[in-house]
């Protein structure tokens, strides 16, 4: 049996691990878990703030995966498959209303009011501080905007995949991203964003 963890050589491609897992190999299943747990959490935390809900959903999708392993098709893109499973599960397990929330502009407006008081120079900012500021800026986005920013810039997902995952047209995803940029642009006046976007306008 191949070494799933790939200690001594290249790690096995997902496709091969997936095949072993489908044949009921628990080690392969664990490898999939180890490969995708963190990634899933990094997306999941944009879908719900409720840790218990997220844990339940992650648990449920892996158990579901294990239970239905024999009936699963070949999966080209495991990450996409798991993301969709997680999203669907969170919708089904309910309670968080992220998916019904429309774009929430109020939080952003509140933020704008407070913004004028903080005038910091970028040059003096460390990378860490910049990241923090970007984080704060992202926090002002609506839930769906956060989700789309997460998928796009953390997970590097294509517009096609995002549109399939979120159940939106590609155009809507694109618009959602543009709207997010607009918010971020205002939020990050002092950062590269502003300079860049204004200079281009």
């Amino acid at each position, binding site marked *: 049996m191949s070494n799933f963890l790939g200690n001594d050589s290249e790690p096995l491609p997902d496709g091969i691990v997936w095949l072993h897992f489908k044949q009921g190999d*628990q080690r392969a299943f*664990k490898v999939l*878990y*180890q490969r995708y*747990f*963190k990634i899933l*959490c*990094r997306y*999941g*935390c*944009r879908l719900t703030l409720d*840790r218990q809900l*997220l*844990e*339940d959903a*992650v*648990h*449920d999708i*892996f*158990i579901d995966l*294990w*239970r239905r392993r024999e009936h699963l098709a070949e999966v080209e893109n495991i990450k996409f498959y798991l993301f969709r499973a997680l999203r669907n599960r969170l919708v*089904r*397990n*309910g309670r968080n209303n992220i998916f019904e929330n429309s774009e929430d502009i109020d939080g952003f407006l509140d933020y704008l009011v407070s913004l004028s008081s903080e005038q910091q120079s970028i040059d003096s900012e460390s990378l860490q501080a*910049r*990241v923090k500021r*970007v*984080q704060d800026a*992202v926090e002002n986005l609506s839930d769906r905007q956060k989700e789309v*920013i*997460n998928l*796009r*810039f*953390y997970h*590097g997902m*294509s*517009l*096609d995949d995002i549109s399939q995952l979120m159940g939106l047209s590609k155009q809507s995803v*694109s618009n959602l*991203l*543009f709207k997010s*940029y607009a918010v971020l642009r205002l939020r990050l006046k002092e*950062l*590269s*964003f502003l*300079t*860049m*976007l204004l200079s*281009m306008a």
Partner: protein
Amino acid sequence: MNDERLNPENLLNNDSFINWVLRKEDSFVWNEFLRANPDKQALIERARQVVLELHEAEKNLPAALDEDQVWSRIESSMKDEETSSMRTGKSRAGFYWLKKAGSLVAAIGVILGAWNYYYGQKRITYKELITHAEVENKLLEKVNTGETPMQISLGDGSVVTLGKNSKLSYPPNFQKQKREVYLSGEAFFNVARDASKPFYVYANETVTKVLGTSFEIKAFENSKSVTVDVRTGRVSVYKQSGIQSMDPEVTGLVLLPNQKVTFDRDEQSLKKNLVDTPLPIANLPAEYKKKFEDVQATDVLKEMEKIYGVRIIYDHELLSKCIVSTSLRSESLYDNLDVLCKTIGGTYKEIDAQIVIESKGCAGE
């Protein structure tokens, strides 16, 4: 790359650009582009910065969950899964409902559904019942370790007589729509009538539902069966069936006074019989004695049916010819039947919680 469309936001929405920045893919395309358009270098670099900053920002979100802890949970669910599929392969639809279950009854049903799923036909313990009931409601518990029966008055006026080595858990205040208690061991229930608030007794794998009545339940954890004996009123008893049937009562049995149900915990079956000592359903004085002189045997039988609430089946034509003089006392149905059968030369037996009288009749004068 079309120059006219090259603004930072379009770059951010370009899949190839993102792939290049985050995964170092497509670098040939972008290096080539930069070489051909040195004036765009600053723009590209800034867009790249934005992607990286957003990536970092999202990466540094607080880690929500503990990887090992979630894995142990998954592993233990997998084990349960194997056990269960080896035993029965029951439906597990209930599992996800668990969190949503609104009412206590639904919660219990669903929880049991989940148990069935996990453990096959595992026996349900009192402790499990309590643990899950307490999610919704704080419960009081009375334990009778003494030798004498213990009287417990519930908030609704019902009185429970708890046998020895038995436990009863109940909420200090019942819910609006229903009264629910949990029993381990044996108890006699005298339930205050309240048609709008059914009274449920959960005992091992059975549920006994009543509106107002008196009955006795024996449900010891280590015993093979659960029995419910009905004194008065009407009771329905059913198996905890989880969520398979919308109304588990449909598969249960309705008990009338002097009937009892035995639930076989191994076979998961319910069987209805008469109680061992059927007593008059109305509170008759101990010295009660109803005399009959020269009446048809059928009249006596009709009276017995009335007093004990037990259906008696006999050949009416045949037995109406039997003229008897006898009396009914407030004792067990069987004592009275013995006397009557002797006089008409017949026998009786109990079938399906009914009495069937066999007699050749009294044709010969």
